[in-house]
């Protein structure tokens, strides 16, 4: 397996230092904390965000917010010039902040500093402090220099922690909760929130995806914080300390017991009882696992960049009889070791490599291709090695048992990158599209193979295939729309 042999096996991993990157030249490399900060802060409906940095950082920060917020973002850019780097930017920055506040009249402003600002030692924190005597709104700051950390996670955590400064002491309101750490739209459609609402529990705030500055200010108006992603755990702890609001760490894990325990804790804190039908879902999961075992038993996989906790995911796939050959891991926490030991006890001992460097892994597929690849990768490249490609983004949007069921369904239906294009087509449409694919003479073989390998072809794609001229096949027309989700 050439380069992969340089990596350590799971039973050799004692700390983060043991998670090696397989090459000096990385592709595509991890995201930076700026990405994490913008991903989080740009969700807050009325919060202006000012990014200070080079054209590059500010351009991409703006671009991400525009895409994520469908052009409703309030991201501003303060672009550094040579003179700012040499002589500092205090006066310019003060003028810019006053300008934004005059135009937007916001309740608060979040300033994000980037690599160059921190490298030249510009003390933006002090500048904001001195401005606070002239400006009567909170000025928050998140530092996102990438040369001091490994990924975007720090940016998310720092943003959550900074938002705490907006919160005010109020009295807690019974039967009201905050959801902390949920980064998708439509939280009310998740299993967790649907069940809370069915018991007359009110959602005070969902941070960050459904929040305003006023809601954050009155975040303490609740009886319980439910943390749905670890990045918001620090904020929940601060709120517990300051406002005496307890929290439940609702697991992003894929473990039935963890989810059941969390539901039990929520019941206890809120003095409610969820319907039995909720807990019966755990039986449904076990049934699905037993059914899926027939398909997955003894199949190998590579775990790529997915939003799941790698150890939880590997424990779930172990129940399906699958085994990983390579796991891409960002870092290890002390709390992960009981899961790691549990995997080692089950004779699961894959290679462990750093995330966000898929180039050297690609070389290894020539000699040892896994049956499945979980996470974002090039679908064409994987199909060249007959690797089944599963993307799990949809599952992350749900909270609770449903997340496991959606994950199992994605594996069963082999939902790949093109599933992000829309709903899967009906089986009949897939059958028709597949029979047409066999008769398109100038379709590249690897694309033909990839499409024939799909159990269900996404509807938009099936429609395009069915409407295409067999003798005038255009690959660009077929793949349109999927390119935005290719990494």
């Amino acid at each position: 397996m050439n380069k992969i042999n340089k990596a350590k096996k799971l039973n050799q991993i004692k700390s983060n230092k043991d998670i090696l990157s397989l090459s000096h030249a990385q592709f595509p490399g991890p995201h930076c904390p700026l990405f994490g900060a913008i991903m989080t802060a740009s969700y807050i409906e009325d919060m202006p965000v000012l990014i200070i940095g080079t054209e590059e950082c500010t351009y991409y920060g703006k671009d991400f917010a525009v895409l994520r917020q469908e052009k409703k973002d309030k991201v501003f850019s303060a672009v550094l010039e040579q003179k700012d780097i040499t002589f500092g930017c205090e006066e310019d920055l003060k003028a810019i902040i006053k300008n934004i506040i005059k135009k937007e009249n916001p309740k608060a402003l979040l300033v994000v500093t980037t690599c160059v600002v921190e490298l030249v030692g510009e003390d933006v924190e002090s500048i904001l402090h001195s401005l606070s005597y002239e400006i009567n709104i909170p000025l928050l700051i998140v530092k996102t220099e990438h040369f001091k950390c490994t990924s975007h996670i720090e940016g998310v955590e720092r943003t959550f922690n900074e938002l705490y400064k907006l919160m005010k002491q109020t009295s807690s309101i019974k039967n009201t909760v905050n959801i902390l750490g949920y980064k998708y739209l439509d939280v009310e459609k998740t299993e967790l929130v649907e069940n809370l609402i069915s018991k007359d529990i009110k959602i005070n705030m969902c941070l960050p995806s459904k929040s305003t500055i006023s809601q954050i200010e009155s975040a303490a108006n609740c009886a319980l914080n439910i943390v749905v992603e670890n990045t918001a755990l620090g904020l929940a702890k601060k709120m517990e300390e300051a406002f005496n609001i307890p929290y439940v760490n609702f697991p992003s894990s894929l473990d039935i017991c963890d989810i059941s325990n969390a539901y039990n804790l929520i019941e206890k804190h809120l003095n409610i009882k969820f319907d039995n039908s909720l807990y019966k879902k755990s039986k449904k999961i076990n049934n699905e696992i037993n059914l899926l075992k027939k398909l997955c038993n003894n199949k190998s996989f590579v775990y790529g960049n997915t939003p799941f906790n790698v150890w939880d995911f590997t424990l779930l796939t172990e129940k399906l009889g699958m085994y990983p050959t390579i796991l891409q891991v960002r870092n290890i926490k002390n709390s992960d070791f009981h899961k790691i030991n549990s995997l080692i006890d089950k004779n699961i001992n894959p290679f462990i490599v750093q995330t966000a460097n898929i180039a050297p892994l690609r070389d290894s597929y020539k000699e040892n291709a896994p049956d499945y690849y979980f996470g974002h990768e090039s679908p064409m490249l994987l199909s060249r090695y007959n690797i089944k490609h599963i993307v799990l983004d949809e599952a992350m949007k749900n909270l609770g048992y449903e997340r496991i069921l959606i994950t199992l369904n994605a594996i069963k239906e082999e939902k790949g990158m093109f599933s992000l294009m829309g709903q899967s087509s009906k089986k009949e449409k897939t059958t028709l599209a597949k029979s047409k694919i066999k008769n398109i003479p100038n379709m590249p073989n690897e694309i033909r193979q990839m499409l024939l390998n799909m159990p269900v072809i996404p509807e938009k794609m099936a429609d395009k295939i069915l409407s295409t001229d067999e003798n005038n096949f255009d690959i660009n027309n077929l793949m349109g729309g999927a390119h935005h989700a290719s990494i």
Partner: protein
Amino acid sequence: MRLYNNYPIPSDRMGALYALGGIEDAYIIEFGPAGTTHFAIEGFMQIDASMHNNTYTTHIDETDITFGDESRLVNAIKEIDKNKSPKYIFILGSTITSIIGIDLLSITSLIQSEINAILIPVPNCDFESNYLKGYKDILSIISKKIVKPNLYKTNSFNILGLFINDYNYKSEIEEIKRLMKIYFDFELNSVFLADSDISSLENSGCASINIVLKSEALEAAKHLDLNNNQPFISVYPLGINKTELFLNSISKLINKEYDKDLFNKEKKAFIDASTDFKNLIKNKSNNVQLNLSNPEIKNHYKDFLSELGLKIDNSANSILHLGNDFSNKDNLPYFQISHPSYKKINRYPFTPYLGTRGALYLTQQLYNLI
């Protein structure tokens, strides 16, 4: 320090990456924080392009910065050279390495003897220039270090100054190809730098002439003229008048007449359409909003719009908006001429804005919007 509510204007470094992104098999190593490279790769998706998976980052941390340690870069270069065997490796610094004074030229000179690939350091960002300087730097590098001078010339031409960040570049290539074929029987050799590859650029020296579309390509064109006997014209054929100027300039350059009857036939189709257009807007405002960051191309549009009786005015009482997915703030009837693109793709290569067909196509599209 400059404040932007919209997109900032891309930097020289971003321009260099857009330019290199037009070379399918260009190997690029960036010495800087990994997040910048990752963002850049995803940024390419907004222009419906790919960095072809040959762009790598070394990442950089506090220790490297404190001690000026360049070993990450040296190791990455050696690794790519050994594993991928590229002919050339382009080495880009980052804003951080520019500030701490990492000298890419010295590093690459020192290790060149151990490396099979030719190492090409790209000038550092200067915190002042925009993406146009990045275009210029890369075109200059390509003309000096990659194009192989060739005494043998064919009836072919190169296009200099078209990039994957130009919204309609695929169609513009096809229209220029068509014009050159039907009027002069010349074939396209290479495009600097869109949908190109290293071997095609190396062999572009056998083209008889170069067509410069943007002034950022002039330095490269002058170098090729002087060192490879490739004379050039510099005309952006947007609108019927500049297309005629384009054809006249080529005719003079290669000393060959072109079929004026054919041109007049094409011109008449445009004149008819533009007359209809002028009638359509007779009792309406003739203001058009235009959003383009390149002042030179903006001027070309100004000239073309005047052929339709329109003038640029960015006020809300305009009848049309020419720009991109983001810029149409007043929700006017809108025609896309620049990036970014969020949900649209533009790959069908026969809807030009340049040339005779481009003039007619643009007139038709704008007519239908009003």
